[in-house]
C-alpha cells in the first residue's frame, strides 16, 4: 500500500513539474500569469489526437510535433497579444483569460465538445513487490522527468539560459550588458507553451481529451507555482514533489475533494505567510 502511494506520488510529481515549469517561466520573464496555460496543454493533446487518428502518424512522431505546435502558437500569442502587457500584471491576466476562452471555443468548433481518446502507445503493467504500475504512466513520468532535466540544462548551462535567468533576476542590469529583455520574451513564452503542449501530448493517451480539459491542468500548475514561488524554477520542482506526495496520501485516505481542499488551503497559507513561496523569489 505504502509503496503504491509513493509510486503514484512520484509519477504525478513528474507530470506536475512539466505542467508548472512553463507557467512559472512565463511569469518569471514576462510577469504575466498565463491563465491560458491549461489551454496549451489542451492544444498538445488535440494535436496528438489529430495527427494520429486524422493523419495516421505514429505516436512517436506525433508527440514532438504536438509540442512544437503548442510552442509555435505560444510564440504567435506572445507577438500578437501579450507583448504589450509586459509589466502590466492585471492587463496580461485579463488578456490570458480572453485567450483561454477563445482557444476553448476554437477547440469546441474544430473537434466538437465530445470526449476523444488516443490509443495507448505503451500497455501492460510492471510489478514491484506488491505495487502495480501501469507502464503507460511510467513512460509519461519518465519522459516528463527527461524533459524537466533538459529544461534545467538549458537554463543552467547555456548562454540563452543565462540570459533568461538574468531577465528574471534583474532586467535593468541585463539591459546594461547590451541585451534587450524584450528579445527574450517570444522565446520564453514559446518554450513555456511548448512544455505545456508536451504535457498535454504525453497525457493524451491516459485521459480523455475535451475542450475544457485545460482547467484541471492549470489548477495543478497554479498550486505548484504558488507553493514554489511565482517565477522560481527550483521552487516549482520542489513544490511538485510536495503536491504529488500530499495529494496521493490525502486522496488515498480522505478522498479527492479533500485533497484539493487541502492544497488550496496550503496555497492560501503560503501566500499569506510567505508570498514569495518556498523557492524564495517573487
Amino acid at each position, binding site marked *: 500500500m505504502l509503496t503504491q502511494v509513493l509510486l503514484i506520488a512520484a509519477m504525478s510529481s513528474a507530470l506536475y513539474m512539466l505542467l508548472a515549469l512553463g507557467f512559472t517561466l512565463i511569469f518569471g520573464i514576462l510577469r504575466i500569469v498565463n491563465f491560458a496555460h491549461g489551454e496549451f496543454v489542451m492544444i498538445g493533446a488535440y494535436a496528438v489526437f489529430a495527427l494520429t487518428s486524422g493523419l495516421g502518424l505514429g505516436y512517436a512522431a506525433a508527440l514532438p510535433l504536438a509540442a512544437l505546435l503548442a510552442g509555435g502558437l505560444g510564440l504567435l500569442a506572445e507577438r500578437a497579444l501579450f507583448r504589450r502587457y509586459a509589466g502590466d500584471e492585471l492587463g496580461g491576466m485579463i488578456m490570458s483569460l480572453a485567450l483561454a476562452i477563445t482557444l476553448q471555443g476554437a477547440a469546441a468548433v474544430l473537434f466538437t465538445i465530445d470526449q476523444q481518446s488516443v490509443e495507448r502507445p505503451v500497455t501492460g503493467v510492471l510489478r514491484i513487490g506488491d505495487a502495480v504500475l501501469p507502464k503507460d504512466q511510467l513512460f509519461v513520468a519518465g519522459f516528463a522527468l527527461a524533459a524537466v532535466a533538459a529544461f534545467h540544462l538549458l537554463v543552467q548551462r547555456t548562454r540563452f539560459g543565462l540570459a533568461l535567468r538574468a531577465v528574471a533576476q534583474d532586467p535593468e542590469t541585463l539591459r546594461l550588458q547590451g541585451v534587450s529583455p524584450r528579445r527574450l520574451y517570444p522565446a520564453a513564452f514559446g518554450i513555456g507553451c511548448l512544455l505545456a503542449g508536451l504535457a498535454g501530448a504525453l497525457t493524451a493517451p491516459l485521459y480523455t481529451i475535451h475542450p475544457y480539459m485545460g482547467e484541471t491542468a492549470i489548477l495543478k500548475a497554479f498550486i505548484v507555482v*504558488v507553493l514554489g514561488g511565482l517565477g522560481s524554477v527550483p521552487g516549482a520542482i520542489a513544490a511538485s514533489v510536495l503536491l504529488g506526495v500530499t495529494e496521493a496520501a490525502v486522496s488515498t485516505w480522505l478522498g479527492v475533494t479533500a485533497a484539493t481542499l487541502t492544497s488550496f488551503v496550503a496555497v492560501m497559507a503560503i501566500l499569506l505567510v510567505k508570498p514569495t513561496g518556498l523557492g524564495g523569489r517573487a
Partner: protein
Amino acid sequence: MSARIRSFAAAAAGPALLAALVLLPPLLGRPFHYHLGILVGINALLALSMQVMLRINQLSLAQAGFMGLGAYASALLTRDIGLPFAAALPLAGLLPALLAGALGPVLLRVRGVHFVLLTFALGEVIVLVFVEWVSLFGGNNGLLDIPPASLFGTALRAKPAFYALTAATLLAALALCRWMTRGERGMIVAGLAGNEPLLQSLGVDALPHRCALFAFSAFLAGLAGSLYAHYFGYISPEAFGFWTAVNALIMGVLGGVTLLLGPLTGAVLLVPLPELFRDAIAYQRLFYGLALMALLLFLPRGLLGVLRASKGSTP
C-alpha cells in the same frame, strides 16, 4: 452656452442611460425579456461587486464564492429555518460581508498578482466546502425547493414582480456605490487606488478602509446570490466557481472599469448573448473570446470609457 448644454448633457447621460436600461424589459413586455432583465440584474450586481475592488486596483476572484455564500445562506435561512425572504436577503449580504471583513485584515496585506491568486484560492475553497459538506450544503447536487421570494406576504412568483425586485436592488446598490465614490469618501477611495503612501501621510489609516470596501463588495455579491437562489429555486456549487467570477470581471472590463454604469452596460451586452444565439451554440464561446480579445486590444478602457473620452469629459 453650448458648454453649459454639453455639461448638462454629460450629467443627464448617465441617469438617462440607466432609466432606458431599467425600463427596457417592461417596454418590451414579454416574459422572456423579464427573464433576461433579471439575469442581467443579478450579473450586474456581481460585476459591480467586483468593480468595487477594482476601484482600489485589487482584482478579487473570490466574488463568485461570496455570491455562493449569499445564495446558500438565503436558501437555508428561508427553506430550513423559515425566515421570511425580506430578512434573508439582507442577511445573505451581511454573511459574506462579515467573512470578508474578518479575513480582510489578513488578505488585504497581499497586493497585486498575489492578491488575485489568493482570492482565486479562497473562491475555490468556498466552492469545495459546498461540495464536501454534504449534510449542510447538499454536495454536488446542491439545494432544491428554495421558496420563491416574497415581500409583505406576497410571493413574487411572476417574472415582472421579481424583475422589479432585482431592479430595485440593483438601483440601491448603484446608489450606494455612487455615495461611496463622492466627497471625502470618494477621495479616500481614489487615494487607495492611486497613492496609498500619500493617503497614509495625510493621517488616513488605509487598511480599515480597504477592509470596509472588501466587505461592501462581498455584501453586493451576497445580494446577487440571494436573488439568484430565489429566482431559480435551485442552486449547486458549480454556479459559483472561477468562470462566474471571470464573466463578472469581463462585464466590468467591457463596460469600463472606472465608470459606475460600466458593469451594468457590460452585463446588458453580454448576458443576453447565450440566450439569443442558441442556434450558434458551438461558435458562441469562440466568438465571445475573439470579441473580448479585440476589445482588449482596441478599446482597453471599455465601451463607456470610449464614449466618455470622445466627449472629452475625462482626462
